[in-house]
């Protein structure tokens, strides 16, 4: 099939209209020596079947989570996605919907986002959530920026236990805003309390992650006190699945809860698209970046959903908008909502408990080998670091040959932890898989 839309006759007529006799004459201004005068070195056309086979062969070069066993987390987690999620998100009226700028014809999309916001508020214990952000990194960065706007201060204190990529994103945002980012080091796998108190002085906000990037559970109550004692806001980066078993940020005084929502019904999918969670307490409602959907009644008293508080958004006041992010991750948010409603309160709790139990089983088995002690004493949820007698990079590459993704070598982000391997155990891992991992690691020299 010929995909070039112009026929020779079309071209002739166009050239006649502008008064040139040939294509060469049309391009006469381009010097001869820079013209490309060979055939393009691309293969001949293929049949559909041939193309399918070629691409399928290429795709087989990637490790697929259906074929390998994943203990790799570090911000993206291999959780089970119930069949309802794909079923609902595959409906064309949802997956083809772009940003709902025509509320009157997108009531269903607006209602879904409203329900998503409600579910996120219930999960995090916060008052208001936005329609979602690009990912956990941008949500974290925005939390830093709105703190600066709210407090009039230009310093952001962030724990080194926050995901390294989130910190990098935060720094990029802060640079543009003219704010300083101060990193608070970790000691024993958790944020160093003394340093945190010092860094909080004069800061717009204190940001910690719980469980943190190293897998450890932070003293979130102490961090809250440190932040608020200095008049700083307090933002917590959460793993939503952990909230099935851990206290939500709203219950220990956080002003903002942000995080990566991929774990809620979205596949790892080689790194995206992901879902940024963004929720705040009522006092910050006019600082929220991005879209917020509200419920109202129309002039006939019927329930309706509308975009609300838009006056803080960029299309109303560009120069004063909290953020110039305008697109949310609508389809990922739909998946998260379907996930949360399918699992229910009890289901999310059970997923959390399974992660907790299996991760602790794996850690205990690894410790029992006598070769892989836990790197930190702090309590952990579904992710933990072990010290390794061999280079963690070698462990990863060796186990990969057996179809096991062993984890994330922490030296990549924390040079001082170069003998540590960060491992995640979700509810999907079986005892057999964990035992196989342990046996394989035990045998490594």
């Amino acid at each position, binding site marked *: 099939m010929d995909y070039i839309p112009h026929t020779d006759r079309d071209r002739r007529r166009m050239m006649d209209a502008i008064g040139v006799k040939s294509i060469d004459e049309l391009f006469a201004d381009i010097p001869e020596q820079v013209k490309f005068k060979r055939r393009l070195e691309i293969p001949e056309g293929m049949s559909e079947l041939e193309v399918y086979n070629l691409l399928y062969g290429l795709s087989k070069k990637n490790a697929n989570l259906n074929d390998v066993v994943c203990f790799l987390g570090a911000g993206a987690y291999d959780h089970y996605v119930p069949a309802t999620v794909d079923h609902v998100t595959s409906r064309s009226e949802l997956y083809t919907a772009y940003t709902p700028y025509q509320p009157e014809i997108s009531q269903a999309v607006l209602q879904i986002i409203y329900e998503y916001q409600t579910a996120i508020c219930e999960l995090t214990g916060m008052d208001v959530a936005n329609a979602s952000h690009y990912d956990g990194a941008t949500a974290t960065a925005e939390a830093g920026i709105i703190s600066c706007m709210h407090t009039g201060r230009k310093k952001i204190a962030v724990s080194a236990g926050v995901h390294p990529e989130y910190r990098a994103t935060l720094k990029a945002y802060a640079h543009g805003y003219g704010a300083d980012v101060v990193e608070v080091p970790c000691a024993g796998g958790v944020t160093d309390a003394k340093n945190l108190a010092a860094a909080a002085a004069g800061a717009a906000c204190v940001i910690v992650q719980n469980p943190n990037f190293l897998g450890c559970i932070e003293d979130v109550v102490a961090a809250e006190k440190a932040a608020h004692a200095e008049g700083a806001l307090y933002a917590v980066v959460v793993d939503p699945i952990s909230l099935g078993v851990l206290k939500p940020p709203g219950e220990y005084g956080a002003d903002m809860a942000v995080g990566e929502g991929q774990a809620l019904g979205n596949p790892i999918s080689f790194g995206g698209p992901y879902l940024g969670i963004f929720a705040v307490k009522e006092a910050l409602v*006019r600082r929220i970046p991005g879209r917020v959907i509200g419920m109202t009644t129309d002039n006939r008293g019927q329930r309706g959903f509308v975009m609300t508080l838009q*006056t803080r958004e960029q299309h109303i006041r560009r120069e*004063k908008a909290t953020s110039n992010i305008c697109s949310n991750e609508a389809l990922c948010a739909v998946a998260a909502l379907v996930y949360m409603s399918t699992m229910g309160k009890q289901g999310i709790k059970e997923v959390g408990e399974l992660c907790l139990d299996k991760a602790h089983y794996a850690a205990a088995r690894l410790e029992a080998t006598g070769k892989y002690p836990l790197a930190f004493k702090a309590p952990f949820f579904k992710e933990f670091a072990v010290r390794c007698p061999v280079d963690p990079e070698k462990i990863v590459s060796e186990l990969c040959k057996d179809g096991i993704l062993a984890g994330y070598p922490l030296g990549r982000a924390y040079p001082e932890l170069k003998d540590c391997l960060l491992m995640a155990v979700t509810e999907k891992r079986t005892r057999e898989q964990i035992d196989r991992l342990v046996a394989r690691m035990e045998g490594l020299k």
Partner: protein
Amino acid sequence: MHPSDRKYSKTHEWVKIEGKEGRVGISHHAQDHLGDIVFVELPEIGKQVKKGEQLCVVESVKAVADCYAPVSGKVVKVNDKLVDKPELLNQDPHGEAWIAVVEVADPGETTDLLDGAAYDKFCEEESGH
């Protein structure tokens, strides 16, 4: 008709001089054009403002407007009632819904502001009548 006991800026704020202080608000004409007011971001007490600079932000269901200080000085009082009842600005813009009181730095600054009648005329012209 806008009351004649105060002066108006062309950006639709009013100031009523009371001794050394100036009580500031937005005009009836301004609230009418903004529509239902849903939020007022009040200035902080102690803030120094210059004539023509932003004093506060008023938000209606359809727009957000910066309010500018009609005179320079220090903010000594703000109307906290507006935090919970921003709709007062629609109901009584020249009375109960004053926004802030400013310690006037230079009384001479009010001379180029409009009186009630001149402001009425200005509004009419601006509306294209």
